[in-house]
Protein backbone atom coordinates (compact mmCIF):
# COMPACT_ATOMS: atom_id res chain seq x y z
CA UNK A 1 0.00 0.00 0.00
CA UNK A 2 1.28 3.41 -1.01
CA UNK A 3 0.63 5.22 2.26
CA UNK A 4 2.40 2.59 4.32
CA UNK A 5 5.43 2.73 2.01
CA UNK A 6 5.50 6.54 2.21
CA UNK A 7 5.40 6.33 6.02
CA UNK A 8 8.29 3.88 6.02
CA UNK A 9 10.38 6.15 3.80
CA UNK A 10 9.70 9.23 5.92
CA UNK A 11 10.56 7.36 9.12
CA UNK A 12 13.73 5.96 7.56
CA UNK A 13 14.88 9.38 6.41
CA UNK A 14 14.02 10.89 9.79
CA UNK A 15 16.05 8.24 11.62
CA UNK A 16 19.05 8.92 9.37
CA UNK A 17 18.68 12.66 9.99
CA UNK A 18 18.43 11.99 13.73
CA UNK A 19 21.81 10.29 13.56
CA UNK A 20 23.08 13.34 11.63
CA UNK A 21 21.73 15.75 14.25
CA UNK A 22 23.49 13.76 16.94
CA UNK A 23 26.78 13.89 15.08
CA UNK A 24 26.32 17.66 14.96
CA UNK A 25 25.25 17.83 18.62
CA UNK A 26 28.21 15.77 19.83
CA UNK A 27 30.97 17.01 17.55
CA UNK A 28 30.08 20.46 16.28
CA UNK A 29 28.02 22.02 19.09
CA UNK A 30 29.98 23.51 22.01
CA UNK A 31 29.86 21.81 25.38
CA UNK A 32 27.64 23.45 27.97
CA UNK A 33 29.90 24.84 30.72
CA UNK A 34 27.99 23.63 33.81
CA UNK A 35 26.40 20.39 32.64
CA UNK A 36 29.00 19.02 30.23
CA UNK A 37 28.08 15.92 28.26
CA UNK A 38 24.77 15.43 30.05
CA UNK A 39 23.38 18.53 28.36
CA UNK A 40 23.51 16.75 24.97
CA UNK A 41 20.40 14.81 25.94
CA UNK A 42 18.49 18.09 25.79
CA UNK A 43 18.40 17.79 21.97
CA UNK A 44 16.50 14.53 22.32
CA UNK A 45 14.50 15.21 25.45
CA UNK A 46 12.88 18.56 24.68
CA UNK A 47 11.73 17.85 21.08
CA UNK A 48 10.27 14.54 22.29
CA UNK A 49 8.49 16.39 25.10
CA UNK A 50 7.11 18.98 22.71
CA UNK A 51 5.81 16.29 20.36
CA UNK A 52 4.39 14.10 23.14
CA UNK A 53 2.29 17.03 24.30
CA UNK A 54 1.42 18.20 20.79
CA UNK A 55 0.32 14.66 19.92
CA UNK A 56 -2.12 14.77 22.84
CA UNK A 57 -3.52 18.07 21.60
CA UNK A 58 -3.84 16.62 18.07
CA UNK A 59 -5.62 13.57 19.50
CA UNK A 60 -8.01 15.95 21.22
CA UNK A 61 -8.62 18.08 18.13
CA UNK A 62 -9.15 15.03 15.91
CA UNK A 63 -11.59 13.76 18.54
CA UNK A 64 -13.56 17.01 18.56
CA UNK A 65 -13.89 16.92 14.78
CA UNK A 66 -14.70 13.22 14.87
CA UNK A 67 -17.71 13.84 17.12
CA UNK A 68 -19.01 16.42 14.65
CA UNK A 69 -18.14 14.80 11.33
CA UNK A 70 -18.11 11.08 12.23
CA UNK A 71 -15.34 10.58 9.69
CA UNK A 72 -13.46 7.31 10.44
CA UNK A 73 -10.25 8.85 9.07
CA UNK A 74 -10.19 11.26 12.03
CA UNK A 75 -10.58 8.38 14.46
CA UNK A 76 -7.76 6.48 12.77
CA UNK A 77 -5.54 9.56 12.97
CA UNK A 78 -6.34 10.05 16.68
CA UNK A 79 -5.46 6.42 17.42
CA UNK A 80 -2.20 6.73 15.46
CA UNK A 81 -1.26 10.00 17.13
CA UNK A 82 -1.94 8.54 20.58
CA UNK A 83 0.32 5.59 19.92
CA UNK A 84 3.17 7.77 18.66
CA UNK A 85 2.61 10.09 21.63
CA UNK A 86 3.07 7.11 23.94
CA UNK A 87 6.42 6.33 22.31
CA UNK A 88 7.58 9.93 22.71
CA UNK A 89 6.39 9.98 26.32
CA UNK A 90 8.55 6.89 26.87
CA UNK A 91 11.50 8.74 25.32
CA UNK A 92 11.02 11.64 27.77
CA UNK A 93 10.63 9.31 30.72
CA UNK A 94 13.82 7.42 29.89
CA UNK A 95 16.07 10.30 28.78
CA UNK A 96 14.94 12.48 31.72
CA UNK A 97 16.33 10.21 34.46
CA UNK A 98 19.56 9.65 32.49
CA UNK A 99 20.09 13.41 32.56
CA UNK A 100 18.78 13.72 36.12
CA UNK A 101 21.26 11.31 37.69
CA UNK A 102 24.45 13.33 37.00
CA UNK A 103 22.81 16.78 37.25
CA UNK A 104 20.36 16.41 40.13
CA UNK A 105 22.01 13.39 41.74
CA UNK A 106 18.79 11.41 41.52
CA UNK A 107 17.11 9.34 38.82
CA UNK A 108 13.66 10.55 39.67
CA UNK A 109 12.21 13.36 41.71
CA UNK A 110 8.55 14.04 42.34
CA UNK A 111 8.84 17.33 40.63
CA UNK A 112 5.82 18.85 38.91
CA UNK A 113 7.07 18.39 35.36
CA UNK A 114 8.22 14.81 35.81
CA UNK A 115 5.03 13.87 37.57
CA UNK A 116 2.89 15.45 34.94
CA UNK A 117 4.80 13.87 32.05
CA UNK A 118 4.08 10.61 33.78
CA UNK A 119 0.40 11.61 33.71
CA UNK A 120 0.61 12.23 30.01
CA UNK A 121 1.95 8.71 29.61
CA UNK A 122 -0.84 7.35 31.81
CA UNK A 123 -3.45 9.25 29.79
CA UNK A 124 -2.13 7.69 26.60
CA UNK A 125 -2.10 4.23 28.16
CA UNK A 126 -5.68 4.71 29.37
CA UNK A 127 -6.70 5.87 25.91
CA UNK A 128 -5.26 2.76 24.28
CA UNK A 129 -6.67 0.46 26.96
CA UNK A 130 -10.13 1.92 26.38
CA UNK A 131 -9.75 1.39 22.63
CA UNK A 132 -8.77 -2.21 23.28
CA UNK A 133 -11.68 -2.85 25.64
CA UNK A 134 -14.50 -1.78 23.27
CA UNK A 135 -15.22 -4.12 20.37
CA UNK A 136 -17.85 -2.22 18.36
CA UNK A 137 -15.92 0.12 15.97
CA UNK A 138 -18.44 2.99 16.15
CA UNK A 139 -18.66 2.84 19.92
CA UNK A 140 -14.88 2.53 20.19
CA UNK A 141 -14.39 5.66 18.11
CA UNK A 142 -16.93 7.68 20.12
CA UNK A 143 -15.60 6.57 23.50
CA UNK A 144 -12.02 7.19 22.46
CA UNK A 145 -13.00 10.65 21.21
CA UNK A 146 -14.60 11.51 24.57
CA UNK A 147 -11.47 10.40 26.44
CA UNK A 148 -9.20 12.15 23.93
CA UNK A 149 -11.00 15.46 24.40
CA UNK A 150 -10.86 15.14 28.19
CA UNK A 151 -7.15 14.37 27.94
CA UNK A 152 -6.53 17.43 25.80
CA UNK A 153 -8.37 19.60 28.33
CA UNK A 154 -6.33 18.15 31.19
CA UNK A 155 -3.01 19.16 29.56
CA UNK A 156 -3.41 22.94 30.17
CA UNK A 157 -4.25 22.23 33.81
CA UNK A 158 -1.05 20.22 33.99
CA UNK A 159 0.89 23.07 32.41
CA UNK A 160 -0.63 25.65 34.69
CA UNK A 161 0.12 23.76 37.86
CA UNK A 162 3.78 23.47 36.80
CA UNK A 163 4.16 27.13 37.63
CA UNK A 164 2.44 26.75 41.00
CA UNK A 165 5.01 24.33 42.38
CA UNK A 166 8.53 25.05 43.42
CA UNK A 167 10.37 22.92 40.96
CA UNK A 168 13.78 21.41 40.31
CA UNK A 169 13.19 21.13 36.60
CA UNK A 170 14.82 23.78 34.39
CA UNK A 171 12.30 26.36 33.27
CA UNK A 172 11.61 26.43 29.53
CA UNK A 173 14.46 28.22 27.76
CA UNK A 174 13.24 28.05 24.18
CA UNK A 175 9.45 28.13 24.25
CA UNK A 176 8.89 31.04 26.60
CA UNK A 177 7.35 34.47 26.25
CA UNK A 178 10.68 36.33 25.93
CA UNK A 179 13.37 35.49 23.34
CA UNK A 180 15.17 32.13 23.68
CA UNK A 181 18.14 32.36 26.06
CA UNK A 182 20.24 29.80 24.24
CA UNK A 183 23.47 30.41 22.30
CA UNK A 184 22.74 30.52 18.54
CA UNK A 185 24.78 27.36 17.76
CA UNK A 186 22.90 25.31 20.32
CA UNK A 187 19.62 26.80 19.21
CA UNK A 188 20.36 25.80 15.61
CA UNK A 189 21.13 22.21 16.63
CA UNK A 190 18.04 22.12 18.76
CA UNK A 191 15.84 23.46 15.97
CA UNK A 192 17.21 20.80 13.60
CA UNK A 193 16.43 18.16 16.18
CA UNK A 194 12.92 19.53 16.54
CA UNK A 195 12.53 19.34 12.76
CA UNK A 196 13.73 15.74 12.73
CA UNK A 197 11.35 14.83 15.52
CA UNK A 198 8.48 16.43 13.62
CA UNK A 199 9.40 14.28 10.64
CA UNK A 200 9.57 11.20 12.87
CA UNK A 201 6.13 11.99 14.22
CA UNK A 202 4.72 12.34 10.71
CA UNK A 203 6.40 9.13 9.54
CA UNK A 204 5.22 7.07 12.50
CA UNK A 205 1.68 8.43 12.32
CA UNK A 206 1.38 7.71 8.59
CA UNK A 207 2.54 4.12 9.12
CA UNK A 208 0.21 3.58 12.02
CA UNK A 209 -2.68 5.16 10.12
CA UNK A 210 -2.08 2.93 7.11
CA UNK A 211 -1.93 -0.14 9.34
CA UNK A 212 -5.26 0.60 11.04
CA UNK A 213 -6.79 1.24 7.61
CA UNK A 214 -5.57 -2.17 6.43
CA UNK A 215 -6.84 -3.81 9.60
CA UNK A 216 -10.29 -2.28 9.10
CA UNK A 217 -10.33 -3.59 5.54
CA UNK A 218 -9.48 -7.04 6.85
CA UNK A 219 -12.20 -6.79 9.50
CA UNK A 220 -14.87 -5.93 6.94
CA UNK A 221 -13.61 -8.72 4.66
CA UNK A 222 -13.77 -11.13 7.57
CA UNK A 223 -17.34 -10.09 8.31
CA UNK A 224 -18.34 -10.52 4.67
CA UNK A 225 -16.78 -13.98 4.69
CA UNK A 226 -18.53 -14.96 7.90
CA UNK A 227 -21.86 -13.62 6.60
CA UNK A 228 -21.57 -15.86 3.56
CA UNK A 229 -20.74 -18.88 5.67
CA UNK A 230 -23.73 -18.40 7.93
CA UNK A 231 -26.10 -17.57 5.10
Amino acid at each position, binding site marked *: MRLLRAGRWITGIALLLLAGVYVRALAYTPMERMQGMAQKIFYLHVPAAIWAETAMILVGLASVFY*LFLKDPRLDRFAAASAEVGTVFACVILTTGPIWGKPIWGTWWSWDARLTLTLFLFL*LYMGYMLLRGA*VSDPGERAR*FAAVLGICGMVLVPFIHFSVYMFRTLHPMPIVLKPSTPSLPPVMLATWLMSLGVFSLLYVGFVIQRYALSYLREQLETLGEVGRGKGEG
Partner: protein
Amino acid sequence: MRLPEPLRHTWAVASKDLLIEFRSRTAIISAAMFVVLVLLVFTFARDPTAVAAIDLAPSILWVTLTFAAVLALNRAFQLELENQALDGLLLAPIGRSSIYLGKLIANLLFVGTVELIGVPLLALFFNISVWPYAAPLALVIVLATVGFVSVGTLFSAMTVRTRVSELLLAVLVLPFMIPPLMWAARATGPLLAGRPLSDITGWLKMLAAYDIVFVGLALLLFPATVNE
Protein backbone atom coordinates in the same frame (compact mmCIF):
# COMPACT_ATOMS: atom_id res chain seq x y z
CA MET B 1 -43.15 27.93 41.88
CA ARG B 2 -42.39 25.26 39.30
CA LEU B 3 -38.81 24.51 38.41
CA PRO B 4 -37.85 24.76 34.74
CA GLU B 5 -38.33 21.51 32.82
CA PRO B 6 -34.67 20.30 32.49
CA LEU B 7 -34.09 20.77 36.21
CA ARG B 8 -37.20 18.75 37.07
CA HIS B 9 -35.99 15.98 34.75
CA THR B 10 -32.57 16.11 36.36
CA TRP B 11 -34.07 15.75 39.78
CA ALA B 12 -36.31 12.90 38.58
CA VAL B 13 -33.25 10.93 37.42
CA ALA B 14 -31.29 11.72 40.57
CA SER B 15 -34.14 10.88 42.92
CA LYS B 16 -34.77 7.60 41.08
CA ASP B 17 -31.16 6.56 41.68
CA LEU B 18 -31.19 7.74 45.27
CA LEU B 19 -34.44 5.92 45.94
CA ILE B 20 -32.99 2.66 44.61
CA GLU B 21 -29.99 3.25 46.83
CA PHE B 22 -32.11 4.09 49.85
CA ARG B 23 -34.32 1.00 49.40
CA SER B 24 -31.45 -1.49 49.35
CA ARG B 25 -28.71 0.47 51.17
CA THR B 26 -26.17 -2.23 50.23
CA ALA B 27 -23.89 0.06 48.22
CA ILE B 28 -23.82 2.92 50.72
CA ILE B 29 -23.19 0.62 53.69
CA SER B 30 -20.45 -1.20 51.76
CA ALA B 31 -18.86 2.12 50.81
CA ALA B 32 -19.00 3.35 54.41
CA MET B 33 -17.48 0.09 55.64
CA PHE B 34 -14.79 0.42 53.00
CA VAL B 35 -13.88 3.91 54.27
CA VAL B 36 -13.72 2.65 57.87
CA LEU B 37 -11.48 -0.22 56.80
CA VAL B 38 -9.14 1.98 54.75
CA LEU B 39 -8.78 4.27 57.78
CA LEU B 40 -7.99 1.20 59.89
CA VAL B 41 -5.41 0.09 57.35
CA PHE B 42 -3.72 3.46 57.71
CA THR B 43 -3.92 3.31 61.50
CA PHE B 44 -2.15 -0.02 61.64
CA ALA B 45 0.23 0.59 58.75
CA ARG B 46 1.66 3.64 60.53
CA ASP B 47 4.28 3.76 63.23
CA PRO B 48 2.73 6.27 65.65
CA THR B 49 6.07 6.98 67.30
CA ALA B 50 7.73 7.89 63.99
CA VAL B 51 5.16 10.01 62.13
CA ALA B 52 2.83 12.51 63.78
CA ALA B 53 -0.83 12.04 62.88
CA ILE B 54 -1.24 15.67 61.85
CA ASP B 55 1.51 15.35 59.20
CA LEU B 56 -0.13 12.32 57.69
CA ALA B 57 -3.75 13.44 58.02
CA PRO B 58 -4.16 15.21 54.63
CA SER B 59 -2.71 12.21 52.78
CA ILE B 60 -4.85 9.72 54.66
CA LEU B 61 -7.95 11.81 54.07
CA TRP B 62 -7.39 12.13 50.33
CA VAL B 63 -6.27 8.58 49.68
CA THR B 64 -9.36 7.30 51.47
CA LEU B 65 -11.74 9.65 49.68
CA THR B 66 -10.20 8.92 46.27
CA PHE B 67 -10.50 5.17 46.59
CA ALA B 68 -14.02 5.41 48.00
CA ALA B 69 -15.05 7.67 45.10
CA VAL B 70 -13.55 5.34 42.45
CA LEU B 71 -15.45 2.41 43.90
CA ALA B 72 -18.69 4.37 44.18
CA LEU B 73 -18.62 5.73 40.62
CA ASN B 74 -19.31 2.44 38.91
CA ARG B 75 -22.67 2.21 40.60
CA ALA B 76 -24.53 4.91 38.67
CA PHE B 77 -24.56 3.18 35.30
CA GLN B 78 -24.36 -0.35 36.67
CA LEU B 79 -27.91 0.23 37.88
CA GLU B 80 -29.01 0.80 34.29
CA LEU B 81 -27.49 -2.40 32.91
CA GLU B 82 -30.17 -4.70 34.25
CA ASN B 83 -33.11 -5.26 31.89
CA GLN B 84 -31.60 -2.69 29.50
CA ALA B 85 -32.86 0.09 31.75
CA LEU B 86 -30.52 2.53 30.03
CA ASP B 87 -32.48 2.19 26.77
CA GLY B 88 -35.63 3.08 28.66
CA LEU B 89 -33.93 6.10 30.17
CA LEU B 90 -32.64 7.20 26.75
CA LEU B 91 -36.10 6.78 25.18
CA ALA B 92 -37.68 8.99 27.84
CA PRO B 93 -38.52 12.46 26.50
CA ILE B 94 -35.79 14.20 28.49
CA GLY B 95 -32.52 15.80 27.42
CA ARG B 96 -29.26 13.88 27.58
CA SER B 97 -27.81 16.59 29.81
CA SER B 98 -30.60 16.00 32.32
CA ILE B 99 -29.62 12.33 32.49
CA TYR B 100 -25.98 13.25 33.05
CA LEU B 101 -26.76 15.90 35.65
CA GLY B 102 -29.15 13.54 37.44
CA LYS B 103 -26.47 10.84 37.59
CA LEU B 104 -23.91 13.42 38.70
CA ILE B 105 -26.12 14.68 41.53
CA ALA B 106 -26.91 11.14 42.71
CA ASN B 107 -23.20 10.28 42.64
CA LEU B 108 -22.29 13.48 44.47
CA LEU B 109 -24.82 12.81 47.21
CA PHE B 110 -23.59 9.22 47.46
CA VAL B 111 -19.91 10.16 47.67
CA GLY B 112 -20.80 13.10 49.93
CA THR B 113 -22.49 10.76 52.39
CA VAL B 114 -19.43 8.52 52.43
CA GLU B 115 -17.25 11.59 53.06
CA LEU B 116 -19.54 12.73 55.87
CA ILE B 117 -18.86 9.39 57.53
CA GLY B 118 -15.15 9.36 56.72
CA VAL B 119 -14.04 12.80 57.91
CA PRO B 120 -15.32 12.55 61.53
CA LEU B 121 -13.84 9.05 61.75
CA LEU B 122 -10.49 10.40 60.56
CA ALA B 123 -10.68 13.07 63.26
CA LEU B 124 -11.57 10.42 65.84
CA PHE B 125 -8.99 7.77 64.89
CA PHE B 126 -6.09 10.17 64.45
CA ASN B 127 -7.05 12.63 67.16
CA ILE B 128 -7.08 15.64 64.85
CA SER B 129 -9.26 18.63 65.57
CA VAL B 130 -11.35 19.17 62.46
CA TRP B 131 -14.21 21.14 63.97
CA PRO B 132 -12.56 24.61 64.05
CA TYR B 133 -11.79 24.30 60.32
CA ALA B 134 -15.01 22.52 59.37
CA ALA B 135 -16.31 25.17 56.96
CA PRO B 136 -13.13 25.70 54.87
CA LEU B 137 -12.39 21.97 54.91
CA ALA B 138 -15.92 21.26 53.68
CA LEU B 139 -15.34 23.77 50.88
CA VAL B 140 -12.11 22.04 49.80
CA ILE B 141 -13.78 18.62 49.93
CA VAL B 142 -16.84 19.78 47.97
CA LEU B 143 -14.73 21.44 45.26
CA ALA B 144 -12.47 18.41 44.85
CA THR B 145 -15.37 15.95 44.91
CA VAL B 146 -17.31 17.82 42.23
CA GLY B 147 -14.18 17.75 40.08
CA PHE B 148 -13.53 14.07 40.17
CA VAL B 149 -17.09 12.86 40.33
CA SER B 150 -17.94 14.87 37.19
CA VAL B 151 -15.19 13.16 35.19
CA GLY B 152 -15.86 9.80 36.82
CA THR B 153 -19.57 9.86 36.02
CA LEU B 154 -18.82 10.60 32.38
CA PHE B 155 -16.22 7.81 32.16
CA SER B 156 -18.36 5.27 34.00
CA ALA B 157 -21.01 5.64 31.27
CA MET B 158 -18.38 4.36 28.84
CA THR B 159 -16.57 1.74 30.90
CA VAL B 160 -19.68 0.08 32.30
CA ARG B 161 -20.28 -1.82 29.08
CA THR B 162 -16.72 -3.09 28.72
CA ARG B 163 -15.38 -6.39 30.03
CA VAL B 164 -13.17 -5.14 32.85
CA SER B 165 -15.34 -2.18 33.79
CA GLU B 166 -14.27 -1.62 37.40
CA LEU B 167 -10.55 -1.85 36.77
CA LEU B 168 -10.73 0.15 33.55
CA LEU B 169 -12.67 2.97 35.22
CA ALA B 170 -10.02 3.26 37.93
CA VAL B 171 -7.23 3.31 35.33
CA LEU B 172 -8.98 5.97 33.23
CA VAL B 173 -10.21 8.22 36.00
CA LEU B 174 -7.23 8.26 38.38
CA PRO B 175 -5.01 10.43 36.14
CA PHE B 176 -7.90 12.92 36.07
CA MET B 177 -8.40 12.69 39.83
CA ILE B 178 -4.77 13.22 40.77
CA PRO B 179 -4.51 16.95 39.86
CA PRO B 180 -7.55 18.03 41.94
CA LEU B 181 -6.46 15.58 44.62
CA MET B 182 -3.01 17.16 44.69
CA TRP B 183 -4.43 20.68 45.03
CA ALA B 184 -6.90 19.54 47.69
CA ALA B 185 -4.18 17.77 49.69
CA ARG B 186 -1.96 20.87 49.46
CA ALA B 187 -4.88 22.96 50.70
CA THR B 188 -5.81 20.57 53.52
CA GLY B 189 -2.32 20.56 55.07
CA PRO B 190 -2.19 24.32 55.87
CA LEU B 191 -5.87 24.27 56.91
CA LEU B 192 -5.38 21.56 59.52
CA ALA B 193 -2.24 23.32 60.73
CA GLY B 194 -4.42 26.35 61.50
CA ARG B 195 -3.19 28.61 58.69
CA PRO B 196 -5.59 31.34 57.49
CA LEU B 197 -7.85 30.73 54.51
CA SER B 198 -5.96 33.32 52.45
CA ASP B 199 -3.01 30.86 52.28
CA ILE B 200 -4.95 28.42 50.17
CA THR B 201 -6.99 30.63 47.83
CA GLY B 202 -4.68 29.67 44.93
CA TRP B 203 -5.53 26.00 45.33
CA LEU B 204 -9.24 26.76 45.77
CA LYS B 205 -9.25 28.75 42.53
CA MET B 206 -7.58 25.88 40.68
CA LEU B 207 -10.16 23.46 42.06
CA ALA B 208 -13.03 25.74 41.10
CA ALA B 209 -11.65 26.20 37.57
CA TYR B 210 -11.26 22.44 37.20
CA ASP B 211 -14.86 21.88 38.34
CA ILE B 212 -16.34 24.43 35.96
CA VAL B 213 -14.34 23.16 32.98
CA PHE B 214 -14.98 19.47 33.53
CA VAL B 215 -18.68 19.72 34.45
CA GLY B 216 -19.22 21.80 31.31
CA LEU B 217 -17.16 19.44 29.18
CA ALA B 218 -18.90 16.36 30.53
CA LEU B 219 -22.30 17.91 29.74
CA LEU B 220 -21.19 18.44 26.15
CA LEU B 221 -19.57 15.02 25.76
CA PHE B 222 -22.10 12.83 27.57
CA PRO B 223 -24.42 12.40 24.56
CA ALA B 224 -21.51 10.81 22.63
CA THR B 225 -21.18 8.10 25.28
CA VAL B 226 -24.80 6.90 25.01
CA ASN B 227 -26.05 7.79 21.51
CA GLU B 228 -26.24 4.95 19.06
